[in-house]
């Protein structure tokens, strides 16, 4: 996938030129997505999840149960804390049933879990985005020893068994602020994937005529980078980061599943799935509900990322 500059963009050389046309491509993307039923469904589902995450306290006020409130009446202490009733205790007061052994409301924990998943994955995406773009462009633009150093660091990080190292780091660090630690650790291993693509494209772009033209007309390095090269990387950045978000949601859930993610009692989908493992045969809903949310969120983001990519590719072809 290469992002070639259009003729219009080549003509936009010079400080006075308006920035390249995101409105047009944004609109085009939106129409591509809304025309596709599958992508639209994904967009709607993601909208619901994001809304849930933002309005979590309001929603749980409506449902009547907070994410940490125990409900001893909803579980059967004599049976090891199994929820009363069918389907893991789904009822009018507990919409998604309750957690075994403590009776915490699953709906509230799903809603608050969405907060954790989305905050961590978006923060990690932002951080990897910044790191990846800056370091990738530095390497691609300056070449030479800068490129050597950055590329070797990238090779090192990419060849590293990241998951094992993440588990090791997270379990040896003191509890501290877990979400921040998670973001930092995930980003530390995530940025090279974006940076490599950015580096390659920066190299190609830096040799293009419009860049040379800008140089010839007296543009400084910073101007060339920010006004000529960066706008042309936009498509790649959008696609790469969109496709990275589901990966980070999965990583966060995975790390929480392995017991090194966010600390209890904070609700997290991965943690819920981990604690549901031993209950699968007597309370399958405890696994099915957080599992479904995690699956659908990751699927939606992946499908959407794919659509955005094809949308951008089409736009470039057009």
């Amino acid at each position, binding site marked *: 996938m290469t992002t070639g500059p259009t003729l219009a963009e080549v003509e936009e050389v010079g400080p006075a030129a308006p920035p390249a046309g995101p409105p047009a491509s944004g609109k085009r993307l939106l129409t591509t997505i809304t025309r596709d039923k599958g992508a639209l469904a994904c967009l709607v589902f993601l909208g619901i999840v994001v809304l849930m995450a933002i309005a979590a306290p309001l929603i749980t006020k409506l449902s009547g149960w907070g994410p940490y409130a125990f409900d001893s009446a909803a579980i059967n*202490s004599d049976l090891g804390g199994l929820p009363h009733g069918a389907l893991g205790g789904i009822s009018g007061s507990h919409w998604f049933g309750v957690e075994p052994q403590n009776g915490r409301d699953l709906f509230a924990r799903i809603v608050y879990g969405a907060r954790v998943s989305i905050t961590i994955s978006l923060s990690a995406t932002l951080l990897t985005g910044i790191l990846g773009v800056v370091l990738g462009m530095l390497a691609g633009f300056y070449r030479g020893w800068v490129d050597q150093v950055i590329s070797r660091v990238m090779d090192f990080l990419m060849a590293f068994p990241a998951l094992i190292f993440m588990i090791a780091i997270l379990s040896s660090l003191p509890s501290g602020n877990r979400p921040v630690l998670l973001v930092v650790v995930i980003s530390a291993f995530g940025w090279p994937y974006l940076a490599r693509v950015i580096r390659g494209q920066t190299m190609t772009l830096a040799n293009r005529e419009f860049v040379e033209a800008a140089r010839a007309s007296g543009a400084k390095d910073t101007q060339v980078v920010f006004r000529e090269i960066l706008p042309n990387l936009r498509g790649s950045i959008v696609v790469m980061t969109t496709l990275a978000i589901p990966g980070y949601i999965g990583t966060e859930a995975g790390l929480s599943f392995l017991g090194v993610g966010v600390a209890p009692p904070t609700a997290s989908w991965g943690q819920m799935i981990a604690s549901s493992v031993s209950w699968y045969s007597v309370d399958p809903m405890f696994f099915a509900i957080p599992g479904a949310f995690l699956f659908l969120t990751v699927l939606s983001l992946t499908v959407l990322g794919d659509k955005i990519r094809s949308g951008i590719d089409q736009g470039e072809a057009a």
Partner: protein
Amino acid sequence: MKRTSRLTGLIGIVASAALALTACGGGGGGSSSNGGSAGPGAKAQQGGTLQVLANAAFSHLDPARGFDGGVNNFYRLVYRTLTTQGAAPGADGTKIVPDLATDTGKTTDGGKTWTFTLKDGLFFETGAPITSADVKWGVSRAWDPEIGIGSPYAKQLIEAPASYQGPYKSGELSTIDTPDAKTIVFHLKKPFADFGSVVAQNTFSPVPKGQGAGNALDSKPIASGPYKVAEYKPGASLKLVRNDKWDKKTDDVRTANPDVFQWTFGLDPATIDERMIAGQGTDANAIAGTVQAASVARIQTPQLKQRTMTGSNGCTTYMGLNSTKKPLDNVKVRQAINLAINKQTVRDADGGSALAEIGTSIQPPTITGRVDYDPYPSPDHKGDVDGARKLLTEAGFGNEFTMTLDTRAQPKMQAMAVAIQQALEPLKITVKINTIDTATYYEVIGTTSQQHDAAITGWCPDWPSGATFLPPLFDGRNITPKGNTNLSQLNDPGVNAKIDEIAKLTDVAAANKAYGELDKQIMELAPVVPLVYEKVLMLIGSNIGGAYLHDGFSGGIDLVSVGLKDAGK
């Protein structure tokens, strides 16, 4: 003086007699003794291979090193001690009976000097006779700083030079006399009426004189009991076969039914539950530890209930409140916390009523002389928030404060911590949960400088007497900067004086009764919150016979009596 075992796969924790029998369907003579042991009592035959499925491996095979309910139970198969606990369910199991010795000890000077005489016909697996010198060698290993990390009683009670560091470094211990090959005489620092119970500790097993240095016994024990180690793969498996030098006629305690004991370690708890529920193939000849909470609902069928055993594990799980930290130094704050904790949610976090009883007093129900009382009552044990708030206001802590609760990195322990956090929230007490790695947990909370405001931990008695429960936890003079067991840092003159007073009693029964009263006196100061008395709830294979839960071994199945109903299977 032992902590609740980390071998959760092998042992569980305590019970009340009321519920002990609910899970016992048929299977024959399930007993309903006070200790709460119950289960299929069909006779076992001699012979066959008994399988044990376990999650955690034994801490140590060396009797001077290992010290928890699970490993103590195992030691009885391989080692003999001067006296030992009975082999029976209920109170008979915690009665001290002679083992290597002919009686439970004789004293002529009110408990300061104790004489034991060995039986005839005792041999090690090597064929060498067991002499009093071998017993002395075994006991003196307890002073070795590297080896003697198990039962502390020998070191605490027996007179020894201050610089003594075990037989390998300092030579023979001069204060234990062996006038002849059959007689051994102990000189104590001060009179101790219950010394007959002390010599049942693992440290009193014989080790051939001159042997057992370093880690030798941890990989290859030298058996004096009915079994010897045939093959040991640490962390994976352990195979015991009969020790043909052991003579049944010298041993009134051990039935020693199976020909072979085969342990498999490192199994996932969920896998163990699945295998025990299915009971296929050799798993019909298997025993295992307490089931997981998630499996409780699955073993309610009549067929499985017949294979279920439940009872008390004899330990108390409690939350220690560090009385040196503000505002926990205020007794009213500690009382308020005691009053506010919702013990029902804590019990449910621990596995529900099938796996735990609500705890009210410090001493668990299996302790002799224990008084059943609830110093901080609330309806259904759900916590009395209003009463607690009143106490806090009286103490001047009506406003919010934060406390840090140490807990182990185990799902169950974390769940209990969260239940406590939730119970204190209405009092505006913010509980910060500090999760500590399981392997270093006791080390961290036992180090005064690293200890936080509160910690969830447990305590099991070494024999069912308050002597092994209250003094180690609440004697203020035992507070040490490292390896501290007095987690509440309580140093109360009244309590200390009472402990001394009881220690002087020569009548064991009177002493136990006095400990029951001391329990009340301590709880008025509220240095701990007794949370639950855990229970064992285990499934046994369909071909297992002679199984009962032994109160002396954290409610584990007594290994010296269990066997197969049909040894040919």
